[in-house]
C-alpha cells in the first residue's frame, strides 16, 4: 500500500502567512510536509489525530491541508488535537516569546499557566475542522475509532510514550495508518527509538522529513501484548538498546548531519535515563565523589580530537599569510532592517568558525575601517577585498551582512543590478563560492516599530509606521526577486525560529555551506534580544488600522502573496 514519498515533501512550500506566523518550534520543512501530507495523501478512511499541538502551528498546517484535500471522504473529517495546554517544562524555552499571533507584550510565564486561549487564537481560521482535546494524555481516552493519521509530539517521557502507545497505536489502520514521530530525531527522547525497534515488525519506515520527524506506516494490527512488551523499557537489554539506535540511524541515512548527531546523543541518553532512575541520593553521592567526577571528565571532557571523516575545508591560520589567499567560501547574511541581522552577526562571530560578518557598507563602519586600514580613498571593491583579508576565518570563510541598499551599491560597482539574471554570478566574482543566508521576520509591524524606535522616533505617527511597513515589504520583495535568479537557493530563517532552535538551524547553515567545524569547536549560545520594542504603539496602530490581532500578521506579512 505504501506509495513512494511525494516529491513535494522535501520542498519548503510557501504556505499561507497565517500558518507560518504562528509561533512554533517546528521547522518550515516540517510544516510544509504536514500540510502537503494532509492535502494530498490523507484519504479519510480513519481519523486524524494530533498529539501535542503546542501553539497550533502544526495544527494549522494539518487542518489547512485537510481543508484543501479534495477527496469526498475527508470532507467530514476533523483533526483531533490533544495538548495539556499547560506550560510546565516548556517555560524556559518560551518564557519571553509571543504565544499567539499579534501578541505584543507577552507576560512572563508561570509553570502552571495555560495557553489554550493562545492556541485558539492561532488556529481560529480552521477551528471548525479541529476537535480540541485539552488535558493530559494519560487522563484522556480515545473512543476506539480507527486512526489513519497520528501525529505524535508528546513522547517526552517513558510514561507518556507508554500511554500514547497503549491508547492510540491499537487503533491505527493496518496498511493505511500513518504515524508521524516529531521527536524521532531529537536528542533526549531515547524511548521512541526503543519502542519503534521492538515494534519494527508492525511499522514500516516511510519517509524522513528533513529538519523534522520520521514517518512510519502501520503494516498490521498491533496487539496489546506487543505494545506492553515494547513499553516495558526496563526490560530492554544493553544489546537491544544499542540495536534500537543502530536501526534508527540506518533509517536516517540521508538525514542532515546534526539530526543524525542528535540520535547518537539520544543513544547515550538511554543510559543517562537509567542513571536518572536511581534514587536522587545515589546521584548526589556519586557526583560528589572525585573519582566519579574524574570518570565523567574522562568520558566527556578529555576526549581525543575529532577527525572529520571528509574534511571539506582545510584550516588556515588567520595571519598575514592569508592576506593573499582568497576565501574558499563566502556568504552574505542579509535581510531587511530589524530582521535580526545584527544579532545574527553577533551570533555567527561568537561561533568563531564563520568569520566576522559585519555591515561593512554601513557608513559609520566603513569610515572607521577605511581609516584603520589607510584606505580612505580606495575604491569600494578594494575596500571590500581588504574586509575579506582582515576578517576571513581560520577555515577560509568570509561573511558580510547586507541590506538590500548595500547589495545594490556593490552590484553597481560591478556594473550590474539586482534584477539582472547574472547578478549573483557577478557577485561571486568578488565573493567566491557565495551563499545567501536570509533572515526574515513574520511580525513585520513589530519590526517596523522597532526600526522607528531605533531611529529615535518619539511620537506615534501612523503614517510613519505605514511607510516603514511598506518599505520593509518592498525590500523583502526586492530580495525575493534577486533570489529568483540565484543558482543556489538562499537559506531562509525566521528570526523567531533562530531564537528557539538556533543550534539545529546553525548546523543546517554549516551543512548547506559544507563547512566542517574543527575538532575543538564548541557551539556558543548567544542570548537573543527581546523582539517586541514598542507594544503600546503596536496596539494603537492595529486599532487605527481596524485589523484584528490575527489579521495584523497577514496584512503585514513578509510573504510574497501578501
Amino acid at each position, binding site marked *: 500500500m505504501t506509495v513512494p514519498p511525494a516529491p513535494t515533501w522535501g520542498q519548503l512550500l510557501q504556505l499561507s502567512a497565517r500558518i507560518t506566523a504562528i509561533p512554533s518550534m517546528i521547522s518550515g520543512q516540517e510544516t510544509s510536509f504536514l500540510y502537503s501530507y494532509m492535502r494530498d495523501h490523507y484519504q479519510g478512511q480513519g481519523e486524524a489525530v494530533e498529539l501535542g499541538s503546542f501553539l497550533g502551528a502544526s495544527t494549522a498546517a494539518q487542518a489547512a491541508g485537510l481543508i484543501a484535500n479534495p477527496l469526498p471522504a475527508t470532507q467530514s473529517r476533523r483533526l483531533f488535537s490533544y495538548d495539556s495546554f499547560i506550560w510546565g517544562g516548556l517555560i524556559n524555552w518560551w518564557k519571553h516569546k509571543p504565544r499567539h499571533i499579534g501578541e505584543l507584550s507577552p507576560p512572563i510565564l508561570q509553570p502552571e499557566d495555560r495557553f489554550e486561549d493562545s492556541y485558539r487564537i492561532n488556529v481560529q481560521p480552521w477551528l471548525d475542522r479541529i476537535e480540541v482535546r485539552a488535558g493530559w494524555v494519560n487522563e484522556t481516552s480515545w473512543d476506539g475509532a480507527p486512526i489513519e493519521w497520528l501525529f505524535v509530539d508528546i513522547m517526552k517521557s517513558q510514561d507518556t510514550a507508554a500511554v500514547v502507545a497503549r491508547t492510540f497505536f491499537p487503533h491505527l489502520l493496518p496498511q493505511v495508518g500513518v504515524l508521524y514521530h516529531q521527536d524521532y530525531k531529537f536528542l533526549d527522547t531515547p524511548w521512541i527509538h526503543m519502542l519503534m525497534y521492538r515494534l519494527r515488525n508492525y511499522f514500516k519506515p516511510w519517509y524522513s522529513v528533513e529538519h523534522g520527524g520520521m514517518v512510519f506506516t502501520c503494516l498490521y494490527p498491533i496487539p496489546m501484548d506487543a505494545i506492553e512488551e515494547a513499553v516495558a523499557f526496563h526490560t530492554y537489554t*544493553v544489546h537491544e538498546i544499542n540495536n534500537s539506535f543502530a536501526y534508527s540511524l540506518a533509517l536516517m541515512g540521508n538525514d542532515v548531519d546534526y539530526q543524525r548527531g542528535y540520535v547518537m546523543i539520544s543513544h547515550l541518553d538511554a543510559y543517562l535515563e537509567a542513571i536518572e532512575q536511581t534514587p536522587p541520593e545515589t546521584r548526589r553521592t556519586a557526583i560528589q565523589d572525585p573519582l566519579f567526577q574524574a570518570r565523567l571528565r574522562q568520558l566527556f571532557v578529555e576526549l581525543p580530537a575529532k577527525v572529520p571523516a571528509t574534511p571539506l575545508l582545510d584550516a588556515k591560520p588567520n595571519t598575514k599569510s592569508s592576506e593573499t589567499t582568497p576565501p574558499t567560501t563566502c556568504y552574505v547574511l542579509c535581510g531587511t532592517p530589524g530582521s535580526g541581522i545584527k544579532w545574527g552577526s553577533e551570533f555567527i562571530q561568537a561561533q568563531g568558525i564563520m568569520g566576522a560578518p559585519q555591515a561593512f557598507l554601513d557608513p559609520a563602519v566603513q569610515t572607521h575601517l577605511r581609516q584603520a586600514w589607510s584606505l580612505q580613498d580606495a575604491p569600494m571593491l578594494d575596500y571590500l577585498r581588504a574586509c575579506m583579508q582582515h576578517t576571513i576565518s581560520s577555515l577560509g570563510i568570509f561573511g558580510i551582512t547586507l541590506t538590500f541598499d548595500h547589495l545594490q551599491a556593490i552590484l553597481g560597482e560591478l556594473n550590474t543590478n539586482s534584477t539582472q539574471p547574472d547578478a549573483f554570478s557577478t557577485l561571486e566574482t568578488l565573493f567566491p563560492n557565495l551563499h545567501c543566508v536570509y533572515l526574515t521576520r513574520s511580525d513585520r509591524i513589530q519590526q517596523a516599530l522597532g526600526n522607528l524606535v531605533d531611529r529615535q522616533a518619539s511620537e506615534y505617527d501612523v503614517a510613519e509606521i505605514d511607510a516603514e511597513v511598506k518599505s520593509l515589504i518592498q525590500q523583502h520583495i526586492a530580495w525575493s526577486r534577486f533570489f529568483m535568479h540565484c543558482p543556489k537557493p538562499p537559506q531562509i530563517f525566521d528570526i523567531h525560529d533562530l531564537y528557539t532552535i538556533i543550534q539545529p538551524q546553525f548546523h543546517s547553515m554549516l551543512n548547506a555551506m559544507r563547512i566542517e567545524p574543527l575538532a575543538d569547536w564548541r557551539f556558543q549560545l548567544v542570548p537573543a534580544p527581546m523582539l517586541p520594542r514598542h507594544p503600546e504603539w503596536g496596539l494603537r496602530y492595529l486599532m487605527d488600522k481596524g485589523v484584528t490581532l490575527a489579521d495584523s500578521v497577514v496584512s503585514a506579512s513578509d510573504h510574497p502573496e501578501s
Partner: protein
Amino acid sequence: VHTPDWSQVPLPHWWDEQIPLERAISDIPTMLAIQELRFLHGYLRDHFQGRGAVVDLGTFLGAGAAAMASGLRANPRLVAHDHIVHSYDSFEWNNLVNWWKGPLVVGGAPAQLNPQENFAFAAQQNVAPWRDLIQIHEGWVDAQTWSGDPIEFLMVDIMKSRQTTRDVLLGFFTCLQPEISMVYHQDYKFLNTAFIHLSMYRLRHHFLPVYSLPVNALVFRCIRPVSREDALQASDFDDFTIQEMHDAFSYSAYLMQQDHAAIQHYIDVAHLDAFLDCIVYLPLEYRQRAAAEPLFWARLERIFGIDVAGLIKPGVAG
C-alpha cells in the same frame, strides 16, 4: 524502579578479628588494608583444608601473597605442607603509575620506574621469606591461564575491566568446588568495578556471601558449580536489562548494609558507573557530539542537580 526484597538472603558475617601479623608482612608496601592481610593470613591458617589450590590474582608488591603464604605455613591441618600460593600479575608499571606513589620494596626506594618497566623484581624481593610457598606467575591473565585444577581459595584483585572479569570467570571460577571454595573479591566495595556486581548478581545462586571486611572486600563461598555457560552468561554484560542492572546493585547494597556509610556510597557510584560503562563502548563520536551540545550538559545538570560542566570542565565557572 522496582526494588526487590532481598531479606531472604543471609547477610555476610562481619570480619574484624584481631589476628596477629608478622612484621615482615605488614611492612610490605600494599594497597590492601591491614584487616585484609589479617583475614588472608587468618583464613588460610584456620580454615583452609588443602582440597584445592590457592590462587592470588593481582600480586602487586606481594603483601597479599605473603599473608596467604604465612597462613599456609601456620595451618596445623596441612600435614604435607605441599600447598603453595599461585600469584599472578602483569607487573606492568604503567597500569599502576597513577595509583601508587609509595616505595616498591620493604624499606626500599619510592617508585621511580618508567611506565614501560616491569616490577616483578620488587614482588620477588618482598616475598623472599616465603619463597618456598609462593610461585609468582608473570603476565596477563586470560581464560587459559589456569591449568584447570580445583581451586579452594581464590583471591581476586584484577577484575578491572569487563574482559578481565570474563577471563577470570571462565578460567578460574569454573574450577571452584561447591561448599569448599572461597572467592575473596578485593574490589567488591570499590567504586569503579561495576562488572563485579553485575557478574556476582547473575551468579548469586552459586555463591553465598560469607564474610564482609570493613574495607574493600566481600568473601563468598561457592555453593554450586560454575559451568562454562554460567560464566559466559554472567559476563555477557550487553545481555543485562536495565532492570537487572538496577537489581544487581540493590543486591550489593543489601549485602553491604552493615558497612560504614562512606563505603556504602561507593556502591552508589559503582551503580551509576555501570551505565557509564555502556556509554564507553559506544563510538567515540557519540561522546564528542554530546560534549559539544549545551542541551546534553543541561541534561546532566538535571540528573545530578548540579552544574556538572562547571564541576568537571576546566575554566567553566561552577
